[in-house]
């Protein structure tokens, strides 16, 4: 309606090669920043260690899914063929952990796969269809051939002039402040 208001979100610097991003990321970490992120068109090899990220927690979700699937498979076969409606087939025991092996094997994999996908979504806090970083005019190119380092205003070390200077000294090609519009 009228002039929109915006708030400062972060300072961003773009780079044009994986090596530049990698080297710069190490320096940002050494400078003691904590609320910052790298953006790249590919998963840059070794960048996690460079940024000081620990190992991803996705495997925990996979394990939880797999265990759930295994017991779900066992439970449905026991419940259906022994407990609720005992089914006589060839005079064999109603339930044994051997014959329904394919059933719980497949369910283990199925649930583990769901755990993995949704674990990835959860850890990445997705879906989230709007984010201040999308306001950067060159954001789209981080999926193409640009690399970017974003240091958030929230960071205790953030300073309007100093951080921008720092990013310029790192070799950032275009350094600018990302502003988040507020309605």
């Amino acid at each position: 309606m009228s002039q929109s208001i915006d708030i400062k979100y972060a300072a961003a610097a773009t780079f044009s090669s994986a090596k530049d991003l990698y080297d710069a990321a190490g320096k940002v970490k050494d400078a003691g920043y904590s609320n910052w992120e790298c953006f790249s068109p590919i998963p840059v090899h070794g960048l996690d260690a460079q940024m000081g990220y620990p190992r991803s927690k996705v495997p925990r979700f996979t394990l939880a899914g797999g265990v759930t699937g295994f017991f779900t498979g066992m439970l449905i076969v026991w419940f259906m063929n022994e407990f609720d409606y005992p089914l006589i087939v060839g005079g064999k025991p109603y339930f044994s952990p051997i014959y329904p092996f394919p059933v719980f094997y497949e369910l283990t994999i199925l649930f583990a796969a769901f755990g993995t996908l949704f674990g990835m979504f959860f850890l990445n806090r997705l879906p989230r269809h709007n984010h201040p970083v999308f306001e950067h005019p060159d954001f789209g190119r981080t999926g193409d051939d640009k690399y970017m380092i974003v240091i958030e205003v929230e960071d205790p070390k953030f300073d309007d002039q100093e951080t921008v200077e720092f990013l310029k000294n790192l070799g950032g090609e275009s350094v600018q402040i990302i502003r988040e519009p507020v309605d």
Partner: protein
Amino acid sequence: MSEVKQAEEHEILKKVDPAPWKEVPLVLNNRSYKWVTDKICGIVESKTPTWWWWCFITAMCIASFTGMGLAYLVSTGVGVWGNNNPVNWGWAIVNFVFWIGIGHAGTLISAILCLLKQKWRTSINRGSEAMTVFAVMCAGIFPLFHVGRVWFAWWLFPLPNSNAIWPQFRSPLEWDVFAVSTYFTVSVLFWYMGMIPDLAVLRDRATETWRKYFYGFFAMGWRNANNHWRNFEMAYLLLAGLSTPLVLSVHTIVSFDFAVANLPGWHTTIFPPYFVAGAIFSGFGMVLTLLLPLRAVYGLHDLITQKHIDNMCMITLATGSMVGYAYSMEFFIAWYGANSYEGFAFINRAFGNYWWSYWIMVSCNVICPQLFWFKKIRENIPLVWIISIFVNVGMWFERFVIANTTLSRDFLPSSWGYYSPTVVDIFTFFGTFGFFSVLFLLFLRFLPLMPMCEVKSVMPQADPHADH
């Protein structure tokens, strides 16, 4: 002591020239990242080409044959198919195993080759995964309608119904329900998850509103952030690790449909590995059949290089030879096992009532791929394509031979019969090729054909330690 030795070795290393080893690049002509993005996104973003419409209309017409076949079947009864006592399975099981086998190459490329760090897989894995998903959809049609009253097919799932009877979990056919539905679901999840970063690229490039919403919705707000990549890569690796035992189990369980039955020619322990090798063989045949024309039409020669084609041909050769070995081993065991019924089943396969199908199978599956030993033939793209068609034909006949030779010659000669498909069988199967093509054409039109982020990852620019 050991330190001294190490120092000596280093001295030697300085003197010795390393053997010349020319690594063939996976993306030719030193392409830039931007070129890759524009190339792949361009396929989706450009105006729909005329050839696409012609193919799409033709595919729709062919797909309608399945529609007609199934409509006639449901309104009349399963008797319209040619299967009858003693051949109760006929084309339904043949087509099912054929299509599901084709799917396996997609999972092999996306999962097993990922675990084996085969970097050349990146440019072909998305298309192959799409092939997997669509092939499993085609496969599902046949057992679904073969149950007879298709509106009761949901009884196969462990859901409460008014008869208060649950599925019988000792039956390999019930295992199949779990194996195939899990395979389909996990393949879709894997395919979709790998596509998220590429959908985000399409979202960010989109100019039309519907594209912004469509790709935006499915990209889930992906941001190319390193934290995202970190979890994504781990999830990708885990899904590859889960899909590997899955794909091996699916065709194993499909082979149980036969192997668990007490019939000569079926009741053999070789079936699971033999079926899995055959599935990968047929799948690579189909990958070549699909990707070679696409490479020509879209000009993807820098991304699907001769190296890729060589590798695919060599896998086809390797799995084709495994299948050939399995055929001969079956014969050997039938003789060595000294069971007269088993012996008869195999003599009958090669020289009995269906001798012609056996020899089509052997010439297409065992003899034909041997041509891939020769570099000249692997470099002759039209010939590779023709051989890939033979592989597809041969693998269909393999399932036909297995299912029909055994069933048509029962234990009692009084019940022997000769199975022929009816026109409804033929229509239904023919139409699935149209159905498959319709889905694949839609995939080409709306989704990224290659995983851009993965292709870029294997290019020299991706190395953060290299001098640029």
